[in-house]
């Protein structure tokens, strides 16, 4: 990608000296949909909170996040305030607690309109209503006077999305937007995100622990483990030809929808390492069936595996058998 919308390079974050991100490189092109997948603590959310300067003050952030040629890390607050919501909007996992409980939803959407589009009064109200309509809130004209607790979880997530759209961002970062929602509502929200992306042409970063959700919604997927991107691959190739043993393991851990029932899944042994006690070299080493002594020497860099696919593994190649069975594919 020659000229991406956002380019994150060498992003490192540490809390109280404990590294949480260890040099993340990730680029998002204009209008592109990128999925970021990984288990809890892999740094998938921290990456984007750090990019927008939303981490608490004790976080030490280094590296570079460039939006349209402008460096965001260390940018002055007024610049960040214009970027947040105006260029890059973000929605979060738990919509009920992500909206302010004491303000009406119309006011919360209107606030973003005032900040980024200078709208006020009747114009802001009309636009709020249009946005709520656009995200599928029924009876938007009346609903804008409701408080978050008067809406269901799915509707609150729609309000969050309307609020994100209010600033006409060029990138929407959705951090586990459906994890707290019921299965059928999750389908509604993913559908809505896809529709809105088609309508507005904005780019989308979908952060999720669910490979299925990400692969279905995104063009490209970045898999993260222990604070690093360990594989970057197109959604199409993700299921057919995952390169990194961890990606293969995640896929095989997904219960299949067909085949013999109640068969053992090829589960990844062990659990995610603690950030303060990472193994040497490749952090996945101790859980990896392919693990060899060279894996402990250094953190493996991302290398090209195939066109549009990069993986951070020392033992790659056409003759290497998959580390985990690929029952789910």
């Amino acid at each position, binding site marked *: 990608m020659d000229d991406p919308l956002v380019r994150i390079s060498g992003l490192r974050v540490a809390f109280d000296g404990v590294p949480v991100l260890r040099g993340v490189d990730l680029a998002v092109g204009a209008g592109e949909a990128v999925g970021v997948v990984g288990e809890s603590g892999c740094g998938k959310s921290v990456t984007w*909170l750090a990019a*927008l300067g*939303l981490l608490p003050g004790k976080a030490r952030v280094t590296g570079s996040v460039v939006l349209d040629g402008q460096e965001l890390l260390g940018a002055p*607050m*007024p610049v960040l*305030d*214009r*970027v*947040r*919501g*105006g260029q890059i*909007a*973000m929605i*979060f996992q*738990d919509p009920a*607690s*992500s*909206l*302010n*409980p*004491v*303000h009406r939803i119309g006011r919360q959407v209107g*606030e*973003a309109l005032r*900040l*980024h589009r200078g709208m006020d009064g009747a114009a802001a109200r009309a636009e709020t209503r249009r946005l709520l309509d656009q995200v599928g809130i029924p009876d938007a004209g009346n609903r804008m*006077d409701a*408080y978050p*607790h*008067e809406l269901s979880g799915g509707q609150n997530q729609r309000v*969050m999305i309307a*609020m*994100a759209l*209010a*600033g006409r961002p060029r990138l929407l970062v959705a951090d586990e937007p459906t994890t707290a929602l019921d299965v059928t509502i999750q389908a509604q929200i993913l559908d809505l995100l896809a529709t809105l992306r088609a309508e507005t042409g904005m780019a989308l970063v979908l952060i999720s622990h669910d490979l299925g959700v990400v692969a279905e919604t995104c063009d490209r997927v970045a898999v993260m483990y222990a604070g690093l991107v360990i594989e970057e691959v197109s959604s199409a190739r993700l299921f057919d030809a995952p390169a990194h043993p961890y990606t293969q393991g995640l896929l095989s851990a997904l219960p299949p929808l067909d085949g013999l029932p109640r068969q053992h899944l090829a589960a990844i042994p062990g659990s995610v390492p603690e950030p303060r006690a990472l193994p040497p070299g490749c952090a996945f080493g101790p859980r990896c069936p392919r693990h060899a002594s060279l894996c402990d020497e250094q953190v493996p860099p991302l290398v090209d595996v195939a066109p549009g696919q990069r993986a951070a593994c020392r033992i790659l190649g056409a003759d290497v058998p998959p580390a985990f069975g690929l029952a789910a594919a």
Partner: protein
Amino acid sequence: MLRFIAGRLLRAALTIVMVVTFAFVVLRLSGDPALLILSVDAPPEAVAAFREAWGLDRPLWVQYFSYFGAILQGDLGQSMRDGRDAIDLVAERIPATLALTLPALALKVGIGIPAGVYAALHRNSATDRVVMVMAVAGFAVPSFVLGLLLVLVFAVQLGWLPSGGQDSWRHAILPVITLGIGGAAVLARFTRSAMLEVLGQPYIRTASAKGVPWRAVVRGHALPNAAIPTVTIVGFMVGSLIAGAVVVESVFSWPGVGRLLVVAVSNRDLAVVQCVLLLVAATMVTSNFIVDLLYGVLDPRLRTARGGGKG
């Protein structure tokens, strides 16, 4: 809404009945008013006559019910010392007490809340630590100790301010500070923790993520939410406007309701004691009621779900 108010009123009435009953029982069990007021070596006939005059010779439960009957008719009884209506005795002391407690309340709110908010916003900074150390100290030192210390320094040593009495506004300064500092400390600690709790909420991050400048996040998103728990403490302080100065009034010989209560208790002057307690209970109950209504205003979640509560 009507049901809510009716329920609250019923509870308020019950509280007041319990307070009055409690005071009646405790005072009656702890000493004989006749002996206290007439002195121990008064002639038995005089004691008997006193008892008869005040109805103290009747069975306890008769006294109790007649007392309640009188209250219901608006008669709070007379002081056994000088025969004046208890309510008048109490009423004429109220302005003096308010002259201390109202400025003290302003001090508590005016210092406590900003200090708490500032400490929360600059968590773990030097200022935060100083505020919290002072808050703990202000909270831990009893008001009579603080009062005496202030008298020692500003009245006795420096001679800047009078140590007691009620002749000019300068006399009020030390008692107001004594009263205010403890409350400000409590409020600062409470506001700080309420604010920290709110600042950790996801909706604060949402506000920042949509580009709201930090000052506006604090003002528009954090403060309205932190106000909800803080109102409880302020309400409690409002409730103690009338009787919250008992100790301080005694230390500074300030002729307010508090001192009247102390004197009346030691004299077993029943009517006066009960009149004060009734007043205290009524203020407490009223302020609690106002706090409950305020909750509804501040927190839409406590209003009726859908309809009714809008506005």
